[in-house]
């Protein structure tokens, strides 16, 4: 090999006795990353659904969001999540009943 295995890490200031450093050993940072990742997944889906549902629910932008449009947005979110779950469930079923996914694709 290139002899890198035995080389010391380059974190000159990071060999702290408390197990810090950027290797992810810090439990506080780990937790933070988990939480923020979850939050970002949520945000991304809101962006995505807003974009999709806008196409379906918004005609001409008026002075306020009328109740019909609002209902449409709410339904849209629910149906989008239903669609996502449906797809996952059906995929799981398809993979259980056939030995390989590729079989079902060629049906």
């Amino acid at each position: 090999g290139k002899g890198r295995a035995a080389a010391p890490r380059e974190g000159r200031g990071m060999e702290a006795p408390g197990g810090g450093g950027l290797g992810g050993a810090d439990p506080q940072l780990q937790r933070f990353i988990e939480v923020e990742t979850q939050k970002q997944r949520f945000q991304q889906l809101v962006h995505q659904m807003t974009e999709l549902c806008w196409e379906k629910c918004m005609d001409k932008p008026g002075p306020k969001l009328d109740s019909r449009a609002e209902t449409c947005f709410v339904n849209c979110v629910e149906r989008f999540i239903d669609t996502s779950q449906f797809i996952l469930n059906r995929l799981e079923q398809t993979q259980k009943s056939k030995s390989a996914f590729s079989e079902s694709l060629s049906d």
Partner: protein
Amino acid sequence: MESGFGSDFGSDFGSGSGGGGKLDPGLIMEQVKVQIAVANAQELLQRMTDKCFRKCIGKPGGSLDNSEQKCIAMCMDRYMDSWNTVSRAYNSRLQRERANM
């Protein structure tokens, strides 16, 4: 996106966490949160611009006329309303799912 302390790994951030030369995790977390917020705002703006351009600008003229500007202004507000509605609806759904587990 550049972080403020990107090149300074060896320097002593010291005082916050009581160790010489140890990076302050609190500082990192705050910086990351700010960057995430900025990224989200940019994403929102980009999609809003796309949608409102489509709704409000017909055949592009030599400038934005008054009606177009009014439309864009209303569109921005409606987009924010929509975003908030979607956020609330999604949150409710997530809570319902968790309650059902």
